[in-house]
Every structure is written in structure tokens, then in C-alpha cells.
């Protein structure tokens, strides 16, 4: 699971108010190099919650690699964009858990694939 996906998701457990961000409990983390597309990163900058991305990087043990403040959507500095690209698409949780911030419901991540199914008594 990449951190872009983490940023796109929230807890969908019923009857709670605090859904975002899902807490991350990593077991295995890997870094896979991905092709850098500055336009894609800039477009995502306008959509993601930056604080949650920073928080997620800390959970995965990669704190301090992101700029302190969220860059604007017309950011041109390649180093800054590359740092965000690295956080969004290159740092990846392979095994671990996503945890609902309010109810504590755990969603397992295996082989990099989150299982976000609720159980039949939760829907």
C-alpha cells in the first residue's frame, strides 16, 4: 500500500465521526523506485492532506524527508517535488495493518494489498 492510497482512504466503519487518517501499524516496509512525473505530483498536491502524509511517513519510519509546509500546486523546485513523489509513490507498506482512528477496527495489509472489506455484521 502506497501513501497516496493511504491519503485517499478513510475509515468506513459505521457510526463514527473521526475517520481520517487511518493509523498505520507497519510490519514490513519497502521502497520501490518509480518513474517521476512532476505534473502528476503537482496535481496530487492539490488533493492530498499534507499533514496526514507527513504523519504516515513517520509511521513508516521515514520521518523528516518531507518539506515542513505543503508546497503549492505550481511548485517548480524539482527536489521538493521529488521528495513528495517519493512519499506518495515509492515508500510502501507490504505487511501490516490499517487501523480506524476511532473504533480501532483493523484492516490487514498483505503482500501490499489492503483488505478493506467490512464483516457482514458491520454493514
Amino acid at each position: 500500500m502506497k501513501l497516496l492510497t493511504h491519503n485517499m482512504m478513510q475509515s468506513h466503519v459505521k457510526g463514527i465521526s473521526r475517520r481520517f487518517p487511518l493509523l498505520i501499524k507497519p510490519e514490513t516496509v519497502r521502497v520501490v523506485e518509480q518513474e517521476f512525473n512532476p505534473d502528476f505530483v503537482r496535481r496530487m498536491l492539490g488533493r492530498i492532506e499534507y499533514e496526514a502524509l507527513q504523519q504516515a511517513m513517520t509511521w513508516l519510519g521515514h520521518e523528516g524527508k518531507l518539506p515542513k509546509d505543503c508546497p503549492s500546486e505550481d511548485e517548480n523546485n524539482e527536489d521538493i517535488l521529488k521528495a513528495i513523489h517519493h512519499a506518495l509513490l515509492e515508500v510502501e507498506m507490504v505487511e501490516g495493518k490499517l487501523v480506524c482512528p476511532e473504533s480501532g477496527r483493523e484492516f490487514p495489509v498483505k503482500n501490499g494489498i489492503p483488505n478493506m472489506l467490512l464483516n457482514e455484521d458491520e454493514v
Partner: protein
Amino acid sequence: MAAKKTWVLLLSIKQDHFHFVMAELRALAEMMKIPTHHFSDADCALNNVRFNLKEDNDITEAKLREMCSRSISIYGLYELWEEGASYEEVHNNFRENDDSLRAPFYEKEFAFEIELIHRKKMTMPERIRKFDSFANCLPMRGKINLKNPQCKITIIENYGVPKDNSPRGEDDLIYVTVGRFLCNGQRNLIVKYAVSNRIAVGNTSMDAELCLFMTNLAQVRAGSLVFDPFCGTGSMLLTSAHFQSMVIGSDISWNVMMAKGKSARMGQENRKPNETLRGALEGYDLGDKCVDSLVIDNNINPWRTIDDGWFDAIITDPPYGVREKCEKIGTSKKFDDWIDFDGTHFPDKVAYNLNDVFADLMKFSNKHLRLGGKLVFWYPVSTVLEHGKLLYPRHPSFELFADCEQVLNMRTSRILLVYSKIKSQHSEDVDASGDVLSLQNGFRDIYFQPCPPGTKPEERKQWRPKQAEK
């Protein structure tokens, strides 16, 4: 004033999917900012699988080349030199008309080539006789270079649509076009992405040509974020990634996403560990286009709503409940001893009403598709119903861009619906609940309607379901 160029856009003769071809050309033209009125159905029928396009501000060689770099309905692009109803007419045109556009190529290394439309075979001597016939009217002075010509002169011969199966001969020739070859379309991708060449396949994996059509209709481009909520083996995501977009796929089936359980391949017991979405993408060296694959029940999904919408295109083939079940999480039973496998609980699933599948898909797209993005999906219809636009799902945020029918059998078709998102989810006239209007697809009711009791065996084949009462 300099002479204006004309280009010939030759379409593939294989016209199984005529509606798809026209819709694809419109979608690509819109992407390349070429006015779409240049590609009307009537022109195509009249000109028989080709378009002549004159150079102007909107139509440039660069744009047409870009279109060819995407299109699978285009066979090739040529710069028009001369055309006519017979070889004599073409020869005369070559002698008499202004040659300022082709003159620069007279000194180049060249080769001749013939493309046949509606004719299959032509012997080499006949071809060479035709090439030689241009000796008196086309002063090519360069060397002949068959392997790597600087100028490939293509003769396009059209023999008209055959009325029967008899082989076409010299006498049937109705039109000759001579031009300089520029580039081909992307027909070769149909072989590259054929289901048999993929790593991950399932029982309902989508045919490569249709996947490519869907990708182009969705106007996927480099750096787009594409989502398929019923991705399965990720057929459409493969072709989207081919055009350099980032892809996310989700499916309710844990087995398919994790590549566990029985394989759909003949002679293979279980799925191999690499038969996942990522594995399939890596098989085409597109691994870095994969954002993630997830196990999600689309009925209750975890996607966070943002103002702009996350996705640039949503391309999907929802299950219709015929070959693949429509399911969502839920249960009608009550029991305590849950079945766990490998530490994973497998929740019970209940039938997901077909109308709800499409209604939820449109509501989902209303929330998560960006303004101007395309929603592309298949919609099954029963051919005993009249199909018209009124029967398609409607939503105030979406405008129908194209509908292309694929006939499945005597009773059913599926229609590829392409919607453009024209209003943001916050527009005033979009109901907050985003009600999907006029959804009355009784497809399953009709598809599974049984023969009335007492039908004789010989009548069974002829029997057709009755239209649902209104």
C-alpha cells in the same frame, strides 16, 4: 499562397465494431483539439473506411500523428498526392496537377507499396506492373530502397464492399489513392495485450481490442489517475497503463486480488503468486504505473471525498450476474463460527441488485471523478427491449458522450456507455443524494425468463422472452 496539404486517414477494414470506431475517433479528436465534426458517421460511410482531412489551423500533421499514436481504429496516415476512379485518371492527375508538395521527395530514396481494401490477394507481377505504370507521370529520381525508404509511396486500392463471397479481381476496382505513408495506427497493440499474452487472466477478462477502445474513449493520458472499481484481473488497467497513466484497481474478490485459489487457465491448478494486478502490469514493464490494488466492497467503500475528485477516468466492466456474480457484503444468516483462512476472515456475500450496481457506480463517479473526466462502463440490455437513450442510467452530473453496442447473442447486447462529467458534485441542481434517474434495466429478469411450461422441445429454440410490461 502555398499549396495546402491533404491527409488520408485510412481506418482498419475490420469493421466489427463500427460504432466503437466512430466514437474512438471523436474522443481522440477531442483530446487532440481537432473539431469533432470532421469525423461524422455519414462521411465515413460515404468514403468507405477513410477520411480526407485538409490542412488548416485545427488540423496539423503533428496532431494527426499524435492521434495515430493512440488509435486502434486507424490503420494508417498518408499525405495525399493524387486520387481518382481509375489508374488512367490518377496518372493524368499526376501529369496535370501542381506538384509543389511532392516535388521535394522526387530525389529521395523511395519504395512503392499497395494497400488493398476489400480484396485479399494480388500477385507480385500485377503489383510491379502497377508500380511501373507511374514511371511516366511521377519523376522519382532517387534510388529504390525497399528496406528503409525515405519516402514510401502507397497506392490504396478500394474494391468496394463485396456483395457475395466471390474473390475480388481487377475489374472491381472503384477507387485509387496515391499518397506518401506517414505512420500506422496502434493495431499491433491488440496482439500485445491479447488475453492469452497476459500474466493474470480470469473467466471474464476483457478482449484487448475492446480494452483499448475503452481506454481511448476515457481519454486516458500520461499522468492521469485511472480507477477500476471492479477490476478483477485488471484488463482495462493494463491498456490504461500502456498510455502512461497511473492506475488503481479494486475488487470485492480477495482471491482474485491476492492471486489465490483456482486458476482460470486450462491445465493449471491454482493461480501463481504473480497473477495479481501488479504482476500483470510488471509483465508488460508497466509495474511503476501501478499505484495500488485493494480489496474493497464497492457498496461501502473507504474512498475519502474531496472537492475536486480523485480520478481522471473511471473505466470498468461491472458484473451483470450472468457469467460473474453481482455481490456485496452482507448476510441473511446468523452464525458465530466464522470461517477464517490464513488469518483472514471471509465475510458472507449477498446478491447485489443489478440496478443498484449501476446507480452506485454513477453516484460514486459523481463524488470521485474530476470535472470533465470520463466514466466508461458496459451496460447489459436485452434486445427485446427497445434501446434508446431513455433506458440508460442518467445522472444530472453526467452527459452521455457515446454509446456503442456489442451484440452478444440473439437475446442480449451490451452497450459501452461513455459519460462526461459536466457538473461538479456541488452544483446546485445536482441533488445531494445524486439520484440516478430512469434506471429501469430489467436485463436479468428478461435474460433468465424461463420458457412457459408446456413449450415443445422444438419450439424452445424459437421462443423469445416477452417485453416487460410498462
